[in-house]
């Protein structure tokens, strides 16, 4: 189906199904129960899951296929975000132009940076992209303040022109919408104790992510993708056979940048604010973590990695001591204090620590990321015992 083989079609359908059913899957605990803290099925986080999914898919097209580790991908996310907010300010509050323009702007930005950075490979390439991204961040935070809003960030305001829209009524800034349907509109479905939220913005981003995922599969399976994989395995040999690899690399870099821009455009479509810190190196590092955590070079890995990191960031960071005391209230006082003291460094602002430990665990024990973990579990439960030799060949090799 869709020009894919059976296996890929199945993968695509699974992803599509996950996206559609996410409001149910992410809210497994009844409202008001002690575990409701771990529910992730609210619009903001669901939107983040799929948007960062798009970002990570794009990053994986570059890193997973060619092995070129870009440490400045956040610059494209940021450029896309700013372009998106400007469209919402100048053109119309309808998100479609914002999403399209942000993709294009990020693509052009990637063309510029890629043209220069791709003259080098390996660590030098990483450093060059990092330098460009930090440059973009510094510019956005200070010199370009009239365009980017500096550290305050760029927002929509009441007196924006919005030339395609009628004048806003009621004295309030219009919310981003798609043909009148507001991004933050939600249907709420309560079934017994459970409450499920179906959000317009989430489904728009979800559809776009599934499309982005489909395009990524096609790229992975195309002759172009094969060429990129060849570059990864031995670029020198490619040169000897007379293939000029640079156009392929540049095209790949631009595509990857456009994915990042698309993610940036979606972010501002969901919440019309763009801050300079979106371009900072920590944001670039985050997407690298997502990809490695999920499984570099695999199709679904980056999406899983993005979901996991965003889950930690939003759920663990919001657990406070007060909640811990509630959870351990059944223990005797001394024990309760002890447990809270033990767990305290890993929650709230310490979520980075928890994530760091998890990341170390994954890299040491599952070099192929979460996807490898999944494969191992599947092998454990599959009835036919793989022979030793077979088992070795299906193993995912870590990227060099």
């Amino acid at each position, binding site marked *: 189906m869709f020009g894919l083989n059976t296996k890929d079609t199945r993968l695509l359908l699974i992803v599509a199904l996950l996206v559609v059913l996410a409001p149910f899957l992410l809210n497994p605990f009844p409202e008001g129960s002690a575990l409701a803290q771990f*529910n992730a099925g*609210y*619009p*903001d*986080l669901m939107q*983040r899951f799929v948007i960062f999914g798009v970002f990570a898919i794009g990053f994986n097209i570059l890193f997973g296929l060619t092995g070129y580790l870009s440490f400045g991908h956040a610059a494209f996310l940021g450029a896309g975000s700013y372009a998106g907010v400007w469209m919402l300010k100048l053109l119309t509050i309808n998100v479609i132009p914002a999403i399209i323009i942000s993709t294009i702007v990020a693509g052009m930005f990637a063309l510029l940076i890629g043209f220069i950075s791709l003259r080098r490979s390996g660590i030098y390439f990483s450093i060059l992209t990092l330098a460009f991204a930090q440059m973009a961040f510094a510019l956005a*935070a*200070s010199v370009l*303040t009239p365009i980017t809003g*500096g*550290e*305050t*960030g760029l*927002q929509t*305001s*009441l*007196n924006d022109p919005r030339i395609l829209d009628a004048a806003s009524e*009621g*004295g*309030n*800034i219009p*919310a981003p919408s798609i043909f009148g349907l507001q991004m*933050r509109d939600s*249907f*709420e*479905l*309560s079934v017994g104790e459970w409450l499920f*939220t179906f959000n317009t913005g989430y489904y728009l981003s979800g559809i776009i992510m599934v499309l982005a995922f489909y395009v990524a599969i096609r790229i992975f399976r195309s002759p172009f993708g094969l060429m990129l994989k060849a570059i990864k395995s031995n670029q020198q040999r490619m040169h000897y056979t007379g293939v000029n690899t640079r156009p392929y690399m540049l095209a790949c870099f631009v595509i990857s940048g456009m994915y990042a821009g698309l993610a940036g455009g979606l972010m501002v479509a969901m*919440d019309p*604010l*763009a*801050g300079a*810190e*979106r371009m900072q190196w920590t944001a670039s590092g985050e997407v690298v973590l997502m990809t490695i955590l999920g499984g570099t070079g695999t199709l679904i890995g980056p999406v899983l990695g993005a979901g996991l990191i965003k889950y930690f960031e*939003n759920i663990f*960071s*919001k657990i*406070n001591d*007060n909640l811990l005391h509630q959870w351990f209230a059944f223990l005797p006082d001394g024990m309760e204090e002890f447990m809270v003291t033990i767990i305290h460094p890993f929650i*709230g*602002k310490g979520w980075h620590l928890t994530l760091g430990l998890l990341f170390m665990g994954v890299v040491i024990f599952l070099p192929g990321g979460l996807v490898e973990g999944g494969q191992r579990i599947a092998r454990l439960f599959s009835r036919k015992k793989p022979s030793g030799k077979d088992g070795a060949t299906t193993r995912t090799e870590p990227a060099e």
Partner: protein
Amino acid sequence: MSKTNVTRRGVLKTGAVAGAGLALPTYLAAGGHSGFANAPGDSSVTLGFNVPQTGPYADEGADELRAYELAVEHLNGGGDGGMLSTFSSQELSGNGILGRKVEYVTGDTQTKPDAARASARSMIEKDGAIMITGGSSSGVAVAVQALCQEAGIIFMAGLTHSNDTTGKDKKANGFRHFFNSYMSGAALAPILAANYGTSRKAYHLTADYNWGYTTEEAVRTSTEAMGWETVAAVKTPLAQTDFSSYVAPVLNSGADVLVLNHYGGNMVNSLTSAVQFGLRTAQANGQDFQIVVPLYSRLMAKGAGANVKGIFGSTNWHWSLPDAGSQAFTRSFGTKYGFPPSQAAHTCYVQTLLYADAVTRAGSFNPCAVGEALEGFQFDGLGNGPTLYRAEDHQCFKDVLVVKGKENPDNEFDLLEIVEVTPAAQVTYDASIFGGELGSCNPGA
């Protein structure tokens, strides 16, 4: 050509699915509509405390959180009641808000607008917070205020001092108790003129975001009006921790006053740098070199240690104030945590009480009703003397304190002395001078 087979079973199936599909939206629309967003249930109400737990303002954030916890305790009838007894409006009786127990959720703004909005959104969407408060940076406050306006939630600004919050970027759903840059400038200028004379040359170091801009502008305008010159104004990134490269050129610039438009960790670091470079003991243009910090707090004075001695600045509140409200608050905060509260803690505590009181007076959690109850509200007994919540821009008008780093502190908390209490009338301005529009209140849903 395709051939359609209509079977009894097929028709029934299709009919059932279509019927369910049509009925679904009706069913969905039935839930959770009571005229405004996140209407609380009958037993409890959730407030969202969104403070910086990491970044340059983390100290302030931690203190704000303590104050919020104290406020919740008092609203629920715990502790000694703090300012509930001194508050001029005696609507709150310690049984929560409108009989509902107050619960709260916390989040980390990281002092970044993006992260702050994400945190606030999750409070609104996931935890059903009816009011968001906090923030220790104007960039964050403006961003979160705009979000609350869109979502139909009341925003009670915490520590935010930029003119923009209730000026250019004011919103109908946002309210600020804290004072602002304009007031600092207006209160500080006469004191500076009296102590340092009227022929001074100032060099500004300014935090590079909206608070820094408006503070620099306010201090510039008010000091230039009395004869000072401004030699240069240099912007420094908010995330900067080493200010030596910014402080080094000051001495040779021809300036004789350094104005640090910095707050929190920024100010601690830049002031320490300035002292290390010998600015406090230097001479320039035949006068002693001076340093001014427009916005001061006890936490900053503590961080900077002996360096703050004799330095002028302005502050919203100080724990040593003798009125009954300040004393009551300082006592219950001190009893609970073992040290006196900062101005950030004070404004956050007061904002929570003011919100609870407004809800009680309005008899509803509806943001529009709460907003109406706060607009033009005059109160006393919350530590700042008689105070007005101005309806035109949702800004509180009250006395401003001009303070100085104490030369011989009696104890580790007694770091600032109050030089003058500038009356509210002297710092009041016309609501229209900063532009911006409130818009209309948004109840969400």
